[in-house]
């Protein structure tokens, strides 16, 4: 589905990683490991097509449905929860919102402004995107940060469900919640299966 050859990225004279070669087959979880500042987020951004690599090829076969969820949360404070939910999921309806809130245990009112939400709650609202539609390739940057144990479990289940359905999932995480089929270690440059 997605093939990377000799990928190199450098800012000015500083090379973050070089010569990365791997493939992401459908139904695989690819875990990206590395210390702070090793370029995990940058690699995800390159894979999702936001950033251009300095060198190397990035080949994506077909036109898969992609999604990148970074550690920034695109929730607008001046929108109500429902408005935010609907702008994140244009095809959803109000009943989807209530359903989703029950599913992830998000206790809030739809007419409340999202500025009242806590970080974890905002993150829950954002993650509705992976619950309400399916994707071919998913890029998750630290998806479990700021979430309670219960929610982590729910999201883990959803990720595993998507994996069974053939989604390629790229993941960076400091918490060891999920085991990757492929582990990309940016510190050592090793790729293990």
């Amino acid at each position, binding site marked *: 589905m997605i093939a990377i050859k000799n990928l190199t990225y450098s800012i000015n004279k500083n090379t973050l990683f070089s010569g990365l070669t791997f493939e992401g087959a459908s139904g695989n979880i690819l875990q990206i490991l590395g210390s702070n500042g090793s370029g995990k987020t940058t690699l995800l*951004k390159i894979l*999702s*097509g*936001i*950033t*251009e690599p300095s060198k190397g090829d990035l080949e994506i076969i077909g*036109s898969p*449905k*992609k*999604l*990148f*969820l*970074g*550690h*920034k*949360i*695109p*929730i*607008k404070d*001046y*929108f109500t929860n429902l*408005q935010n939910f609907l*702008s994140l999921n244009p095809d959803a309806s109000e009943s989807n919102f209530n359903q989703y809130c029950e599913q992830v245990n998000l206790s809030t009112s739809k007419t409340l402004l999202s500025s009242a939400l806590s970080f974890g709650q905002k993150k829950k609202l954002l993650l509705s995107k992976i619950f309400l539609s399916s994707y071919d390739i998913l*890029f998750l940057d630290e998806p479990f940060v700021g979430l309670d144990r219960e929610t982590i479990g729910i999201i883990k289940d959803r990720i595993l469900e998507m994996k069974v359905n053939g989604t390629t999932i790229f993941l960076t995480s400091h918490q060891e919640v999920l085991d990757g089929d492929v582990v990309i270690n940016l510190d050592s440059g090793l790729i293990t299966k």
Partner: protein
Amino acid sequence: MNEFKKLFQKTRNWLGPILIFTMVMIAFPLSLNIYSSELVSSFESILVISLLMTAFISTEGIFNEDYSDGTFEMYISEDGSMFQLVLEKFCANFLMVSLPIALVGLSFAVANGAILENYLSALIGIFFVNTILTSIFAFGSSISLNKGAILGIISVLPFSMPAVILFGRFLDNLSLDHISLSFLQLLAGLSIISFLIFAWLSSKIIKLHLE
């Protein structure tokens, strides 16, 4: 539609420029003798300068929020067209800021006796010039994303000079009652061209910023 909703919710981003424009329009005659003939003659330049200022103020943070909260990144990863998003933002700004400002500007122009006839032409002219300036300054704001506004202004201010000159000519002709349909067409054409070109450039620059 989403962009309209967003702009509408951020009251200060659209009401602010309109209020500032109105304040300048009110403050200007106070600085002159009320019976002085300067009132009419210097009104044009005040109008141009305040249009320039409000175009800058209204576009100053046009991309900042979506940039810093990750909306752009998510949008691009879903293969969304940045160009289209920027076009929507521009349109929202035109309707919510430029049009009201054109109306306010026209009413003050009439009140100060700078425009006696051709109200519709004046309205259309002010509106189109405002859209040109808005497009140019929005481009500047895309350059200075998260770098503070000064960088954006100095980099696009030279580009706005032709628009200022054009507007000066327009107001001159208007007061002499020489305004022709072709002049309005020229303004409309330039407005559309600058709208498309600067929206496209802004989308390019924003993509560069996301790296």
